[in-house]
């Protein structure tokens, strides 16, 4: 049977409930929510005067009502030590989501820690250390002392290059301005750590280096532009499942035609029609189905390219558009450099691109017309360009990113209403740190760890066992090295600190690695660690972040963190304090002095020290001001504080001035060079199946909370792999069967989901799922700036077992909406 909660009524929010601002801490979209909380022994009533909505709740409420919440939006949590009911419900007044809640965000309450209702009991409550052969609880002072002494000993022997770090760089849960600053000030301020990587890639680098190098920041438009565009051009993104409420609330109205009045009002003097959309993706997704449902098939162009050939397509579009005279020559002259040079270098004919991409030449021409053919009367067509992991984690990241930005610049579509050339994003953003002290390209951290370098590894909210490339090999070596330290620790009494540190250092000299994992749950990589430090998440602390249109909000603390858990920024501060103490004890006063400036008591202290003092426009932003700005916040950068409000920036580059030399954006040369990462072409030649990979609607990130959420685990007990039924017949598997996916990089498992729309020999597997890690079969090949290439992976597939019991109740019907 499908999972059912057997909940048929919920406590009613009383009229006097406490109301706090919440921004969903999962994806980049950052939907606005409110948290309502009240004493556990009280309840509102159905009479209008007895509930927060002021309506008669003894009546059925209509569709889209703000006066209802689902069981997943409810919990009982601790607030300042007392039990309270809590409802976390989408805010109809938030411009981002207008009251919509996705299947992920609408579960914020249910995915909170509750001893009272037994949810998320996996959360870490105490610092834990390796003692007597297993992880055991200890005090903060003890855990931090051990970490500081081992870290100091490694620095004393190997220098700061012996300290390896994996750390979030984003916003939302496991990040935010407070926490990126806390960790950044520790590793880049007090120390100059070069050997550091980010949660989803094996080096400290931008995923969108090219656009930044061209002088174009990657989050340059606003969500309203999706309502104003004539054409939406989207690359490697499945918005309905990954930016759900951005897509539903801002793209769909344009495809449906309901934003035409807004276009006429804001952009008079040119004709307006419902939007058309071009989707570049090797796979047919539910997003494409939804677009067809709303806009009609005639207004949806799915360019199902050969995997990894985006660059050739974009260069051909640029060439064709330029040859037709559809470029924006005034904009090019005033705001850009090197157009002619890049056009000559990138020149690609439609037929050449058709050959490489596998597309019909007529479809390439049609895409060019939809992007740039002037509208009736000669007005410039407004096209919004957007991209995400299909491009970012795809072939030749740097050049492909550049070739898409070339196209947007050439058609005058950046800084203008209905335009933009933006990454769509994964997490929210929330970056404020001192500059990274390492080189470019940054060191390939995974390979250094595999090769035996480094003595101590600090991990902040990263789980490489699930979310890195070459994951099987990484795990094998990481376990080997950390086991050496575990063995050494088990051979001395834990209470003898000097002997413990000496034993650990002995193991490190022999190739061992000491691992410290800061996280909210026991992670997969944490299985190898020697210390776990329990962190608080969004809502258990005040936390600021910005979304994909640079919209900054404050999520207020609405519940207590579990046990002794603390915000990451304060963990970083206490670690800095401990390091200062240890180095001073050792007589290294001048080095110890570098760890001053971490006397923060609250996350607000970290915010003021970090964002307020260091970010562009940060001086206008405080917690009080953000609280008053509610769930709509403001769009960064702040430019003033006027009439009680922070003044923001709706679009970047609206004045035609870009970030490059002389205020210009620069066109880049970006020639096609096949599958660029080492070993990819050979892998393609050798193995039968493309193992494309990505997200699904139910699951947030690597399922770190969802793995303990019955609704999700019931639907996806194993990661799915979508396969064409003819391919299934060929290898002799049925729906729900478990299969092994394997190649020369490693092996993993998945559950077969028959998918009639899947191209032959092109599968799609759920990424980063704990019950079958797709990264195990991704090669170590990266681009010249150490950006991973997860998408272009090829492997073979064989049957492991018939569908197990946990799969028997599942449905394998098409995921596409049908009328």
């Amino acid at each position, binding site marked *: 049977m499908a999972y059912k909660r057997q909940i048929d009524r919920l406590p009613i929010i009383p009229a006097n409930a406490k109301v706090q601002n919440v921004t969903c801490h999962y994806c980049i979209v950052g939907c606005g929510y409110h948290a309502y909380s009240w004493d556990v022994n009280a309840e509102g009533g159905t009479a209008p005067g007895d509930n927060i909505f002021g309506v008669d*709740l003894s009546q059925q409420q*209509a569709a889209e009502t703000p006066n209802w919440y689902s069981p997943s939006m409810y919990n009982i949590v601790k607030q300042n030590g007392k039990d309270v009911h809590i409802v976390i419900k989408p805010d109809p007044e938030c411009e981002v989501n207008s009251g919509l809640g996705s299947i992920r965000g609408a579960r914020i309450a249910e995915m909170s820690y509750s*001893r009272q209702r037994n949810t998320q009991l996996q959360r870490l409550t105490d610092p834990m250390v390796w003692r007597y052969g297993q992880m055991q609880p200890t005090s903060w002072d003890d855990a931090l002392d051990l970490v500081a002494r081992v870290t100091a000993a490694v620095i004393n022997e190997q220098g700061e290059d012996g300290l390896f770090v994996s750390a979030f760089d984003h916003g939302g849960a496991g990040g935010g301005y407070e926490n990126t600053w806390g960790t950044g000030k520790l590793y880049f301020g007090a120390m100059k750590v070069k050997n550091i990587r980010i949660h989803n890639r094996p080096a400290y680098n931008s995923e969108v280096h090219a656009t930044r190098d061209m002088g174009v920041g990657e989050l340059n438009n606003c969500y309203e532009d999706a309502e104003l565009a004539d054409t939406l051009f989207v690359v490697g993104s499945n918005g309905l499942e990954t930016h759900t409420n951005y897509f539903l609330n801002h793209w769909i109205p344009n495809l449906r035609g309901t934003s035409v009045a807004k276009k006429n009002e804001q952009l008079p003097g040119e004709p307006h029609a419902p939007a058309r959309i071009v989707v570049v993706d090797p796979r047919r997704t539910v997003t494409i189905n939804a677009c067809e449902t709303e806009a009609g098939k005639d207004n949806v162009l799915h360019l199902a390219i050969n995997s990894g050939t985006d660059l050739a397509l974009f260069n051909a579009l640029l060439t064709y558009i330029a040859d037709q005279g559809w470029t924006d020559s005034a904009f090019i002259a005033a705001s850009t450099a090197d157009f002619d040079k890049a056009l000559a270098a990138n020149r690609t004919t439609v037929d050449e691109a058709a050959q490489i991409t596998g597309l019909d030449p007529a479809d390439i021409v049609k895409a060019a017309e939809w992007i740039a053919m002037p509208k009736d009367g000669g007005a410039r067509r407004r096209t919004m360009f957007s991209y995400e992991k299909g491009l970012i984690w795809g072939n030749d990241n740097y050049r492909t990113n550049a070739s898409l930005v070339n196209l947007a610049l050439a058609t005058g579509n950046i800084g203008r209403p209905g335009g933009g050339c933006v990454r769509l994003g994964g997490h929210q953003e929330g970056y404020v740190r001192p500059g990274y002290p390492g080189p470019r390209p940054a060191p390939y951290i995974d390979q250094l760890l595999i090769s035996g370098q480094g003595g101590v590894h600090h991990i902040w909210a990263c789980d490489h066992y699930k979310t890195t490339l070459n994951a099987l090999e990484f795990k094998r070596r990481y376990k080997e090295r950390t086991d050496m330290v575990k063995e050494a620790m088990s051979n001395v009494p834990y209470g003898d600190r000097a002997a413990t540190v000496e034993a650990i250092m002995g193991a490190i000299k022999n190739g061992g690695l000491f691992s410290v994992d800061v996280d909210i749950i026991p992670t997969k990589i944490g299985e190898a660690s020697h210390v776990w430090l329990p962190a608080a998440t969004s809502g258990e602390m005040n936390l600021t972040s910005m979304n994909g249109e640079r919209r900054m909000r404050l999520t207020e603390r609405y519940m207590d963190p579990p046990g002794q858990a603390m915000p990451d920024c304060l963990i970083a501060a206490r670690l800095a304090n401990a390091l200062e103490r240890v180095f001073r004890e050792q007589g290294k006063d001048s080095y110890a002095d570098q760890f001053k400036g971490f006397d923060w008591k609250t996350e607000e202290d970290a915010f003021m020290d970090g964002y307020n003092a260091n970010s562009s426009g940060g001086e206008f932003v405080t917690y009080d001001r953000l609280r008053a700005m509610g769930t709509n916040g403001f769009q960064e950068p702040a430019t003033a504080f006027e009439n009680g409000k922070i003044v923001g920036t709706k679009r970047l580059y609206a004045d035609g001035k870009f970030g490059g030399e002389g205020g210009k954006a620069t066109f880049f040369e970006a020639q096609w060079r096949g599958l660029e990462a080492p070993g990819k072409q050979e892998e393609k030649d050798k193995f039968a199946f493309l193992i494309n990979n990505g997200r699904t609607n139910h699951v947030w990130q690597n399922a770190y909370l969802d793995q303990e959420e019955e609704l999700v685990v019931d639907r996806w007990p194993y990661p799915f792999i979508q396969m064409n039924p003819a391919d299934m017949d060929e290898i002799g598997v049925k729906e729900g069967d478990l299969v092994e996916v394997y190649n020369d990089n490693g092996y993993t498992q998945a559950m077969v989901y028959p998918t009639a729309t899947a191209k032959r020999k092109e599968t799609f597997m759920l990424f980063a799922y704990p019950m079958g890690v797709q990264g195990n079969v991704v090669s170590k090949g990266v681009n010249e700036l150490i950006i991973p290439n997860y998408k272009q992976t090829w492997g073979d597939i064989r049957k492991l077992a018939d569908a197990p019991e946990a799969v028997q109740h599942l*449905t394998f019907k*098409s*995921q596409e909406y049908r009328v």
Partner: protein
Amino acid sequence: MKRCDAMVDVGRRQFLKGGAVAAAGAAAVSALGSAPARAAGSARVAYPSNRLANIADLKDNEPVDVAYPDADAPGVLLKLGTKVDGGVGPDGDVVGFTTVCPHKGFPLAYNSDDRTLNCPGHYSRFDPEKGGLQIWGQATQNLPQYTLRVDDKGDIYAEGVDELLYGRLSNVL
């Protein structure tokens, strides 16, 4: 042990968590088909026992509009032709569901080609052959299903619902 202690601790609030006892009770009732539908011991709301139709009124794969537990709560009865989870009647193939999408309350439409319930609001899809499992969609609940009983005259009674219905904070208003 932590979980057990916490459950004792929560005392009278136990009804809110959808405990295993209540779930098992409902499943047993569904399997028997003709037993009284109150899940013993649970603190769920008291449901009316309402006659929705007679077995003879149902044809394979043709939805019959109903309402339960009151006229403001539209739903559907389906005879699916093969025995399914939660199915009642002589062939174990009769099921009943709400047709109000648990995401935002839009009315679901039945697609007889692939026997699915589809939401025009945000494209969610549910499988009535699999207990209302959300095939794909935005709802944080699988589709609320009726507990059905068929008497010896073939009259079909609804006597409970296994998830909260959209638009009401108590299934029985």
